[in-house]
């Protein structure tokens, strides 16, 4: 049995499926409680139904985009694990980057055929640990934080959003720069200082992916096709990956 076959085995589906099912039950419980509370508060059920319908229709397209993310990761991590990660907690950009960082610590690259079972379980654990802080903070501070905001008005929420948003964008800029720098460095000096003999495929993939993202943004922002934004990351990634296949031939 190959590594990928093991990662797509029935046992994997069972473990991942059980967790997805648990989260689905949690969502149903929260939904029923909120619905009952809304009725007890005298809220119009038509408005509540409208909120549910709008949220369901709103979520279909992004969910298809997320499904494409499962497809993108399935070649290196199998189907069940990306399915679990992207069904609950994760997001495509986070999962891909953390999986790659974990692979790097093990001296392998994602999707290069060197994946071992231990490498996979290590990658899976790092993916789980790195993104758990939202849940931990929520568990420890949600109640107190909301109570403080109730007392102090909305000012605190605004204050957190000031430099916070810029810091997040800057952090991503730093992250992207490190990776693109490594692709440029790999091509120019990867096979000897200034030899220009390294692989240029990652650079071409970056360029194609960025161009497709530019097209997505152009159509969603300038041509009023905002729904396209739901597919921008997954769509750009798949086009970049397609470019790698064409270069490979």
């Amino acid at each position, binding site marked *: 049995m190959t590594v990928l076959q093991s990662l797509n085995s029935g046992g994997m589906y069972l473990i991942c499926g059980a967790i997805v099912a648990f989260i*689905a039950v949690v969502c149903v419980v929260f939904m029923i409680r909120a619905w009952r509370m809304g009725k007890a508060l005298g809220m119009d059920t038509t408005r509540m139904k409208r909120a549910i319908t709008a949220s369901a229709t709103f979520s279909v397209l992004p969910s298809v985009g997320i499904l494409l993310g499962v497809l993108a990761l399935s070649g290196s991590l199998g189907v069940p694990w990306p399915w679990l990660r992207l069904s609950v907690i994760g997001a495509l950009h986070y999962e891909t980057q953390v999986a790659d960082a974990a692979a790097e610590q093990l001296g392998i690259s994602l999707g290069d055929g060197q994946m071992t079972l231990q490498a996979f379980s290590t990658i899976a654990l790092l993916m789980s640990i790195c993104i758990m*802080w939202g849940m931990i903070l929520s568990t420890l501070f949600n109640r107190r934080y909301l109570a403080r905001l109730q007392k102090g008005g909305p000012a605190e929420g605004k204050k957190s959003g000031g430099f916070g948003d810029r810091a997040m964008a800057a952090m*991503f800029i*730093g992250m992207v720069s490190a990776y693109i720098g490594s692709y440029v460095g790999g091509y120019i000096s990867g096979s000897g200082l200034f030899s220009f003999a390294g692989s240029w495929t990652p650079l071409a993939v970056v360029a194609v992916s960025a161009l497709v993202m530019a097209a997505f943004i152009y159509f969603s922002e300038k041509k009023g096709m905002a729904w396209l934004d739901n597919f921008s990351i997954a769509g750009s*990634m798949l086009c970049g990956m397609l470019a790698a296949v064409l270069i490979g031939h």
Partner: protein
Amino acid sequence: MDKKAYDSYMKTTHRLGRLVSVITLILLVGAPFAIGALLGAMPDLGAVARGFLSVGLVWTVSSVVEFLVYTPMLGAGGSYLAFITGNLINMKIPCAMNAKELVDAKSGTAENEVISTLSIATSSLVTILVLALGVLLLLPLQPVLQSPVLAPAFGNVVPALFGAMAYKYYRKAPLLSLAPLTVMVLLFILVPSLTSSTSFMIIPSGALAIGLSYLAYRKQKGAGI
């Protein structure tokens, strides 16, 4: 409004939210060990610790900011669910805001708490359903996905991600982006062995970008913009 019933609802929401968050944490961190036992290969904890030091810190900062910014928007029930089910920026936040605007619920009210919870729960269930159906459809495609022809595609999933993200983030601050990009390109050209530690290089690169962003922010604030 029945204030007593609402207070009791909120109390139970917090209890339930904390309980399911802890259970989900245990399940998600436990899953790699369960998988390790199933496949006969436990995780390499040393590699996990090194990986966490390189990328985990970045995502920890991101999680703190997300918690501070999004919790007031989503209310108690909505935020517990959102932090469990993920995909915040790309789906849950705009979805809840859309529902809130549609029914004209005001922030911080009991109505907002109910609408936000209904919205996030619905959105999560739709994602779970779409992905489950999609995975069922993917099953027969597995031989195709594992074919050698497609191997270069899966080998370049990370550059594909960073190409898309580069355009998305660089356009927000093109001048700010130039500095970390130039420094990183030069570093990787002059010290090619750093390629095997790319994720560690996120720390200096991110620190440089955040530092420059903070200076620009202070300058703008000082100018009263």
